[in-house]
């Protein structure tokens, strides 16, 4: 079989485009590791990056490094900073992945992880937790993340149920039901905040989001959800590409549309709910990261999703680094930083590339 060079050229370009994006995944992974090291080193007590590196490597199995650093340094790195950095990375990755999934599933560039009630459900759960008369800390755990998680899942399940028409769940109905229920829950949250008295400050701080109380136990709880959900979503990336056509065409190309919707919604909701339960509803990362990735690397979800995982993690770790260092010892709410740093960068990308991004 012979092909003319004109026919070969664009397909060759397609090949090299794939290779470039594979290298980008590798490059971002290396960058992520470097940024974890950087963020773990910088803080009120400055630790040289090499020392941080040694402390971390010494913890790996089969590695034997003589300890040249103080015990307090090890405590700061391993017990205070690293869990916070890892949790920030996990939450950033989860929100970016969920955002990319919702944008793809709803074929809507305005979709974010909170579109179908997760944020308002989590907020309501958390606020109820704050207002309960009992102090649950005596039990060794806080009730707030648990109630936030339950609230997020229940709210999304109700939205899904309300949007159901027979055997199908039309996405426009889903979005409308999400917006309506979100407004209802949001107003209940507002009412509860107003009448919460001296607890108001704590609630508002939670709602704005923060990593200041991060511990390894939280990483341990969030990680399984985020890892499982993200893997499931990435496996379905090619199907999500086909879903970018209308649902009728997706069916005609062999996609079980309703089942795919249910699986993707469940996975994206779960990773969002697990994230917001501990750190509050951090905005902007979930909607902007996938768009930035799309602008740079294109719309193919097989690359968009893994690149969003990495970019979301990097972005959130850097944002948290800024949040805790710029006005130290005062912490700036993380949501403020994500918007202040992220928005100009995104607008720059938007101006630079003029082609269709969605």
């Amino acid at each position: 079989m012979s092909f003319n060079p004109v026919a070969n050229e664009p397909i060759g370009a397609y090949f090299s485009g794939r290779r470039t994006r594979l290298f980008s995944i590798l490059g971002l992974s290396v960058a992520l590791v470097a940024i974890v090291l950087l963020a773990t080193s910088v803080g009120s007590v400055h630790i040289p990056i090499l020392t941080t590196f040694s402390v971390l490597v010494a913890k790996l199995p089969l590695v034997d490094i003589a300890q040249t650093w103080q015990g307090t340094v090890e405590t700061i790195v391993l017990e205070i900073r690293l869990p916070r950095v890892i949790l920030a990375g996990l939450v950033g990755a989860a929100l970016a992945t969920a955002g990319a999934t919702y944008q793809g599933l709803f074929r809507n560039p305005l979709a974010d992880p909170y579109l179908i009630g997760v944020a308002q459900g989590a907020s309501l759960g958390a606020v109820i937790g704050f207002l309960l008369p009992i102090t649950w800390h005596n039990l060794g755990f806080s009730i707030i993340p648990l109630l936030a998680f339950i609230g997020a899942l229940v709210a999304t399940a109700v939205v899904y149920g309300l949007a159901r028409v027979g055997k199908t769940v039309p996405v426009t109905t889903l979005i409308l039901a999400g917006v309506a229920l979100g407004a209802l829950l949001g107003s209940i949250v507002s009412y509860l905040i107003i009448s919460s008295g001296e607890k108001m400050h704590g609630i508002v701080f939670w709602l704005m989001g923060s990593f200041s109380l991060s511990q390894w136990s939280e990483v341990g709880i969030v990680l399984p959800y985020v890892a499982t959900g993200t893997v499931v979503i990435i496996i379905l990336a090619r199907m999500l590409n086909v879903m970018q056509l209308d649902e009728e065409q997706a069916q005609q190309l062999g996609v079980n549309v309703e089942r795919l919707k249910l699986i993707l919604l469940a996975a994206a909701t779960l990773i969002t709910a697990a994230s917001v339960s501990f750190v509050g509803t951090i905005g902007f990362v979930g909607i902007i990261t996938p768009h930035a990735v799309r602008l740079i690397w294109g719309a193919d979800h097989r690359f968009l999703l893994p690149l969003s995982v990495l970019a979301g993690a990097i972005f959130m770790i850097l944002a948290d680094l800024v949040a805790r260092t710029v006005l130290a010892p005062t912490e700036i709410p993380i949501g403020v930083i994500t918007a202040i740093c992220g928005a100009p960068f995104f607008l720059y990308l938007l101006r630079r590339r003029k082609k269709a991004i969605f």
Partner: protein
Amino acid sequence: MRLKVVELEMQSASLGYNHRPVLQDINFKALPRELVGLIGPNGSGKSTIIKALSRVIQPLSGRILLDGKDMTKIPRQELARLVGVVPQMPLLPSAFTALEIVLMGRNPHLGLLQSESQHDWAIARQAMTKTDTHTLASRRVNELSGGEIQCLLIARVLVQETSVILLDEPTANLDIGRQVEILDLIKKLCVENNLTVLAALHDLNLAAQYCNRLLLINEGRIHAEGTPSEVITNRNVREVYGAGNCVYAHPINGLPTVLLSTSQNKSIQIL
């Protein structure tokens, strides 16, 4: 490319939306190597038949059989390896390139963790060369004309390698040169690969020239069925379209040809 030979049959099917039938008691059979044309006025239900045959909608009653097997029992992905569709004016995501859209036709052939291989690319390249869309490969679909998109969708259905191809107005956006090119290609593939092809066509003249058999649909039923000469008659055209005495024999091959002029069309009152 060796494909399974598939016979398509509708048995007293009633089709519609939200429990309201648009079409009732539809019976027909489409055989391999046959190009069957669906003709009929606007809103007669041509697209509905195509939706039912690709299981986008379920028949309200009756059965649709693929090689004697009830279509509802075939898993979605397997069905997409048997039946491919060229939709009419579909929505295409503008951020994807023409090649990416065509490669989506390989979706039913790929496992969950598989990505397109060299083999799949070769198939896509071949289909795009056949449909004259290879030069568009790296263009984004929002930069393409209606006609180019039509050809791209035909490339996609070829890449899908199905035994049955359903086309919804495949020539609607094409100039007359492209209309003939595309229908020639479809006809050739149909005969060479033993495909079963069903095309909803607006243009009665093209339908007469290319189809082995025609189904004339009107008011929710099959009004007439048979060869083009049996179906496109003065009587049928008057009954269905209200346009009288406009069918002539084609000067070269004698097939029925519809020629309209205002003076001949007695049903239109010029005020």
